[in-house]
């Protein structure tokens, strides 16, 4: 493992805008997994309205509502701190709205096309049908050397991958990117994008360690027996029960409501 002379800086980007689905947990998980291995860590919550530091080692972006997503994208475009950090070798984990913002284009609530940060070669448009909400199971791309991934998706946008982006994996259950190719998420260098909430790193500690090792080198194993119980439960649940989440009796009235 390369010797570091400073703390690993984990930056949670705009938790006040991109933290709707508990995704702030990803930053905490990364920080704790370094601490438990004796590494010095600085966990930075970069609230909106102040510049995001470009000197971080790992950045976490989470899900958020449409307006908040737009606000975050506009702030991150100023001075492009994420782009600078990525050029300097930082890793990024971006979930849902945060994932979309990293791409070339993403949709606003009313379907307008907005410019993303262009850090990864993906394009997101507004989905026309039912919002994908539910358990998501993914077989990761073999090169990543990860076990099956589990998460919970809840998004209105559909994402297609360009030639410069590789999928994080292939969807076994759920919708994922929804672009028609059965892919989920994207990986470009040390940037990992996904639609999996949960948070994704709580359910998939191996993905957490993949991101960490990409920045700090090899790491010793931790006791992940509780996370393993959770993973197995979620995977088995989807394997045995593929029913949709809404019961028929609520659907009768739900259908009157506008859904985002």
């Amino acid at each position, binding site marked *: 493992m390369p010797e570091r002379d400073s703390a690993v800086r984990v930056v949670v980007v705009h938790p006040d805008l991109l933290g709707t*689905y508990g995704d702030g947990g990803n930053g905490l998980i990364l920080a704790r997994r370094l601490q438990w291995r004796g590494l010095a860590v600085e966990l930075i919550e970069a609230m*909106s309205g102040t510049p995001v530091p470009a000197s971080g080692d790992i950045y976490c972006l989470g899900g958020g509502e449409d*307006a908040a997503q737009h606000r975050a994208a506009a702030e991150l475009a100023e001075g492009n701190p994420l782009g600078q950090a990525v050029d300097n070798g930082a890793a990024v984990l971006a979930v849902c709205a945060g994932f979309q913002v990293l791409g070339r284009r993403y949709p606003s609530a009313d379907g307008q096309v907005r410019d993303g940060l262009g850090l990864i070669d993906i394009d997101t448009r507004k989905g026309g049908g039912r919002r994908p909400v539910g358990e998501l199971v993914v077989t990761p791309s073999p090169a990543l050397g990860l076990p099956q991934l589990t998460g919970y998706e809840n998004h209105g946008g559909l994402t297609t991958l360009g030639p410069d982006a590789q999928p994080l994996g292939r969807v076994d259950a759920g919708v994922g990117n929804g672009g028609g190719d059965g892919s989920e998420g994207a990986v470009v260098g040390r940037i990992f994008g996904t639609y999996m909430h949960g948070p994704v790193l709580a359910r998939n500690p191996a993905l957490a360690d993949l991101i960490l090792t990409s920045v700090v080198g090899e790491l010793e194993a931790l006791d992940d027996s509780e996370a393993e119980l959770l993973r197995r439960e979620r995977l088995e649940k989807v394997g045995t029960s593929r029913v949709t989440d*809404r019961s028929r009796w609520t659907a009768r*009235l739900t259908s009157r409501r506008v859904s*985002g």
Partner: protein
Amino acid sequence: MGRASRLAGRGGGGVIGGRVTLLVDPDALAHLARGRRSVLVSGTNGKTTTTRFLAAALATAGPTATNSGGANLPFGLVAALSSAPPGGLAALEVDEAYLGPVAAAVQPEVVCLLNLSRDQLDRINEVRLLAGRWRQALEAVAPAPADARGPTVVANADDPMVVWAASGADRVVWVGAGLSWRLDATGCPRCEGRIQFTDTDWSCGDCGLARPEPQVTVDEVALTDQAGRRHPFTLSLPGQCNRSNAAVAATAASLLGVDEAQALAAMEPVADVTGRYGVVRVGGVPARLLLSKNPAGWMEIFDFLRPPPSPVVVAINARIADGRDPSWLWDVPFERLAGRQVVATGERCRDLAVRLRYAEVDHVMVEDPVAAVAEARRFGDASQPVDVVANYTSFQGLRRAAADA
């Protein structure tokens, strides 16, 4: 049939009859509400308690229909109204996603809006969308001629989402009811700018949407009404959040002619709201049941718990009524439970156990809630009831376990 409803995991058994009525007659709710003076209560947290307070207050003035069991979907409202004689008053809790259709059917005199924050996001999707729908609903029930009477809204001035929604109404009475969870209100609901909070105030830096000056306030001692009169009061229920709920209920009651002092006096003895806060025996062990189903609710709960090292049982399910996605557990600062033994239980105890591990809080996992309460007793003072915090369906399960014992 009541038994079937309880098994379905929602409501206290009062829903099935209402559902049948609604399927037969889609206008049942409107018919049943006609000729009544109704108050609707909605929001993410505090609906059931506020409705209970309101019903107690209104009952001092006359027969009052209410869905006191928390069955707050249209079926539940139909059941509540059809079991009460026609006419009279009604205090009705309404699920936040159904406020529009329910208000259109019931034509209430008063609508109480408490707060909006993340809860059941698999169903609600976005808090801000919901605020927008509330606003449209209130505009829709405002009468077309300016001299007609639409509902008066009693609204929490401290929640930007509520303020934006309530501003669509004819007449609003603003109550300073507090907001303990602000992370869902940082984006301005009107312009997409940023809401800036101070301890007691908020405003949008971009469009100027700002906290209205409350006409009604509440502190540790008294409620101050619209006329500036102070009404000292005490409650049997703990916590400042319940004093705020009482202030909203008393203000709504005053709009129906029950003065605040009389209303608050009627709320004082309310000690148990559909089992919440009550001490029951679970598997023979005395347990105090607390309901908390989202991050905002948890912010209040930490203050109710017995101090460390008292153990606490936390019961988490993720059924439809809970929201299928328990990732909100990561928005709750469970780090504040450090120094206690936590017993993680319920159908999603594994999610909770992982959360507690990263919070570095001592815990054990016991999936069966009855066994979990027994386990917690080993860690605490056996003469004290065990504190149990449960989310919606796990709470109902514990109440049934207590009733069956």
